[in-house]
């Protein structure tokens, strides 16, 4: 490995009810990579992120962020959930949602002030949404909502970013805008982990990739491991057999 390890996952197993969703995952994500997690529907991509972030309790395994448990390293980690996971008719504005990114560093009870507002406005500008700051969030398009979520994570000023399908349902312009921001984050030495669906764009967007289908199929630099062999192993017709093993 070229760098320090940002995220270290050992023996992670997750199950809803009886069927395992993730089976014995070992994964080391080096610092400073822009990594895609790819795999078919139901492969456990979102679950992997959620169990790293302690949203879902795994049956077994451990997750370390820079050698310490996640609970002690929350401030280093930012999360962009799937856009569809919230109700966009909630009575609030774009700026308000981005401000939520500062709540973690504020802690309990303390109110956001001018400093937090300034940070939120800067993040809105970065994603090109400053003009929409007072807009009720239901009146934003899907792509704009995704940018708001991205801005909220940027405000957290973290070292590691987990993003769950940030390109889902956005147009080509927004996709380019988002990937440019992600590449900037990598340039600044941050680690970015993205659940991704469009295999076509993996070599163009990412430098690191993890193939996932309940079990980890492969992980490494895109130029070394993004090949037919791994794609077939992940998406191929034999995948049911490999689940049962």
């Amino acid at each position, binding site marked *: 490995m070229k760098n320090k390890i940002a995220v270290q996952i050992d023996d992670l197993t997750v199950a809803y009810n009886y069927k395992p969703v993730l089976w014995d995952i070992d994964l080391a994500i080096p610092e400073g990579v822009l990594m895609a997690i790819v795999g078919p529907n139901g492969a456990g991509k979102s679950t992997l992120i*959620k169990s790293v*972030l*302690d*949203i879902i309790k795994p049956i077994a395994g451990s997750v370390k962020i820079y050698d310490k448990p996640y609970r002690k390293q*929350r401030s280093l*980690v930012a*999360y962009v*959930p799937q856009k569809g*996971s*919230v*109700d966009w008719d*909630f*009575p*609030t*504005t774009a700026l308000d*949602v981005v401000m*939520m990114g500062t*709540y*973690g560093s*504020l*802690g*309990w*009870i303390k*109110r*956001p002030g001018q400093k937090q507002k300034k940070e939120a406005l800067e993040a809105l500008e970065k994603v090109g949404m400053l003009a929409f700051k007072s807009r*009720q969030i239901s009146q934003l*398009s899907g792509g704009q909502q995704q940018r708001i979520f991205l801005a*909220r994570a940027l405000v957290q000023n973290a070292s590691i970013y987990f993003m769950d399908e940030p390109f889902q349902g956005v147009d080509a312009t927004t996709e380019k805008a988002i990937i440019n921001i992600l590449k900037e984050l990598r340039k600044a030495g941050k680690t970015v982990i993205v659940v991704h669906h469009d295999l076509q764009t993996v070599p163009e967007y990412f430098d690191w990739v993890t193939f996932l289908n309940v079990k980890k199929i492969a992980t490494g630099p895109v130029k070394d491991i993004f090949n037919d062999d791994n794609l077939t192993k992940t998406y191929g017709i034999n995948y049911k057999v490999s689940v049962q093993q």
Partner: protein
Amino acid sequence: MDILEYIELVFTDYTLRTITLGTAVLGAICGMLGSFAVLRKQSLLGDAISHAALPGIAIAFLIIGAKNSNAFLLGALISGLIGSFWIRGIIRKTHLKSDTALGLILSLFFGFGMLLLTYIQKLPNANQAGLENYLFGQAATLLESDVWMMSLVTGICLIVLLLFWKELKISLFDSDYTKTLGFNIKFLDILITTFIVVAIVLGLQTVGVVLMSAMILAPAAAARQWTNSLSIMVILAAIFGAFSGVIGTAISASHNNLSTGPVIVLVAAVFVLVSFIFSPGRGLLFREIRFRKNRNDLQLHKTLSFMYNIVKDHEDISHPHAIKILNNFQGFTKKSLQKLEDKDYVTIEGNMWSLTTSGYETAANLYNQLTQTEDE
């Protein structure tokens, strides 16, 4: 009785003053907390909790053998809390969806409560009379001490809401994300659920088990129509709730044999109805008006762009053309032509029309404008 007389009576008559204050405070706290229930998509939770409180009242009576509203409150609170945490448990531990869990707990507890009530009515205990008032509520039984109790709870609830405002707001909007920021969402969940249970239990004596959920839902649903800000929504819901209480009490007090609880609920329903129709942003009326206006604008634009296509090949843009040549165009009506003239886009002389300079420029920009608004 006219309004002035009534208002004077509110200030002089002890019973009426107590009831008016009580229902106002009750409406306010229910509106406030109801906003959270509605936004958590747990509108039915209120219904389940209020029904779940009934056996608690009955059991409290069986234990102390006399009517005591504080003991009843405690009994209702305990069984309401048990009911709501069972609902939570069922949703988390089984595959059942929340509506099933709510329905299950609601009917189970209510059935048990009714069973106890009928049993109590057969008891040779003269104190049991009036216990069935908890089904539909009886505001006349409110005492000044009850109103103090309600005000105290409302005060505590207000302080807690202000204190944990930011946490409650973010956990309402995006609970997974809230968890990653290090906030204990279980604590927040229990906090708000407990307050909702308390508000419902406080209202049972006045509004009753059966109608209590309306007090939680109606003011919040009405308030949501008028604003896109959570804080304003909560304030508005409290105001709507309080006015439902005051107006409902006034109506029921000035007519014989009108029970207060149902009247309050009906007043709240009127707030909802008016809000659904007349609120400017989300109301049905203004939505319809906006929809029609957009359609008319589109029709005008279609006519204008048709004219533009005819005119653009001529050197003189204001060269007059016969109205007749527009006839085959489906968007064209006498009215839309008239509207275009009103906007100074065309001039009409006899049966000839000609584009004005401003009309020409508007038409030339139409296409750009359309794509721009779609980008937004």
